[in-house]
């Protein structure tokens, strides 16, 4: 592949990675709409999902422009299979403690909060750094998204502290949520080929440089929440490279069902 095509591919993968993260997390959080633990928080979560859908749309619109050939934000969201999605596996997991893909079960608000915290603690410094992306449209999206991510992080941190340092039950639930999710954060720090290439091309951010700051944020909040920082050893997920968990194909089957039943339709 020649240099221009490669650079386009890298930019496209990078935009999709960021867009898929936002969309997949929004989709998971949307499942709480109307069934949250308290009305104010139901609305706060919906609000954050709206921010994430907004980010995904901007990123996909730019990706569609880069890709050309009639791609749109909706063809990217609705007509790609799970192996083409480049989101972190962390974000596609059901809002529950571990279970296999097809085992139905109750949702767990603690897992949702812990995940939002772990993710937005990454995205604040990531968007911050991406404001200097050499790809100007991405820098602009980063500036807008940064404000939102800051609010998401503040909101999630406050709740992690509240519930970590709440009742014995809420403490135990939050600890279990972090114990479950923490190993999945390893994927943040192992750059994929397209991330490395994006850094070289001046488009992307070197995530490894963000790790120490992220650890400090997590440690400080968990300490305030009287929670133990769990181990994050073991299997490193490969969602960024299109190798997902058993959960993403279910999520996409539901999300894409109406659009795919009516290919080519306008909505």
């Amino acid at each position, binding site marked *: 592949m020649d240099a221009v095509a490669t650079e386009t591919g890298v930019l496209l993968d990078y935009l999709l990675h960021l867009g898929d993260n936002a969309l997949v997390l929004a989709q998971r959080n949307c499942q709480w709409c109307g069934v949250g*633990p*308290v009305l104010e928080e139901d609305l706060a979560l919906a609000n954050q999902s709206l921010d994430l859908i907004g980010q995904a749309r901007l990123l996909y619109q730019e990706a569609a422009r880069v890709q050309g050939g009639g791609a749109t934000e909706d063809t990217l969201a*609705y007509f790609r299979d799970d192996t083409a999605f480049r989101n972190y596996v962390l974000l596609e997991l059901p809002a529950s403690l571990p279970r296999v893909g097809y085992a139905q079960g109750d949702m767990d608000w603690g897992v949702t909060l812990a995940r939002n915290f772990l993710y937005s603690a990454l995205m604040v410094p990531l968007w911050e750094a991406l404001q200097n992306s050499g790809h100007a449209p991405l820098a602009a999206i980063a500036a807008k998204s940064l404000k939102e991510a800051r609010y998401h992080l503040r909101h999630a941190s406050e709740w992690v502290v509240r*519930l970590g340092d709440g009742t014995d039950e809420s403490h135990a*639930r939050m600890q279990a949520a972090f114990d479950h999710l923490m190993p999945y954060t390893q994927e943040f720090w192992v750059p994929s080929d397209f991330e490395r290439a994006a850094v070289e091309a001046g488009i992307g951010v070197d995530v490894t440089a963000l790790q120490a700051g992220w650890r400090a944020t997590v440690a400080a909040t968990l300490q305030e929440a009287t929670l133990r920082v769990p181990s994050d050893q073991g299997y490193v997920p490969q969602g960024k490279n299109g190798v997902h968990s058993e959960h993403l194909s279910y999520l996409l089957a539901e999300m894409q069902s109406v659009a795919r039943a009516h290919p080519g339709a306008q909505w």
Partner: protein
Amino acid sequence: ADKLDAFQARIDADGRIEPQDWMPEAYRKTLIRQISQHAHSEVVGMLPEGNWITRAPSLKRKAILLAKVQDEGGHGLYLYSAAETLGVSRAELIEQLLTGRAKYSSIFNYPTLNWADVGVIGWLVDGAAIMNQIPLCRCSYGPYARAMIRICKEESFHQRQGYELLLTMMRGTEAQRRMVQDAVDRWWWKCLAMFGPPDSASVHSEQSMRWGIKRISNDELRQKFVDATVPQAEVLGVTLPDPKLKWNPERGHYDFGEIDWEEFWQTVNGHGPCNKERLATRVKAHEDGAWVREGALAHARKRRQREQAAAA
């Protein structure tokens, strides 16, 4: 009796009653019942539309729908606050909903079965709700009237969005048009019933009229709704499922067929297609969320104690 006269005089002069003002106990109770029912309706009403958020067929529509359902939750919040000014706690009101002692709008006991339902709920259900609610913007109780002004503004926006969704689908494929017609067929009569029983059979109306809580009768509102909706249906290109529906030049209104009141009362009394699912879902959400609410309370208590200890 002096207080009562002054109260009624203020209402008759189109003035507003405020929380600190004296008011008859029956007025307070009627308002609490009505406002809380309305709040519960907003919250339960999140469920039928929430059913399509994860499956919205475009990202734009997904965002619009999510924002709309979020608005409904917001309306629930204003209304619970308005009810609280009458000296009842939100927890108490929610307890009434979850134990089945309080009602919510029966329209939310019907299922949303295809994506076009989202548009039809915006166009027809919100349309009917607005028709019912606009007079409440002049309700005699200040906090309720002010909440309704804000709510009506947002509902009008939702109605336009719903109609626009349907216009887009009607311009689309044959299958999309069928979806819209199917949704209209299922919702039309339920929407007409939203205005409540015929005036001849309505119980609470007279006192509510005198108190400035209700200002226009059920049948008048229903007629207004039909008259406003028929031309919109024509523009859209859908058929309203009523063979008796036709313009009556003498009355200057559309005539329409007979509502199936038996089906309406069945649903109001718990036997609609989704009554149990809606309520059970709210109950489960409340129970599953108990640890979160309790955790937050416990934390607030701890924090207060620490601050007091630090201050001491």
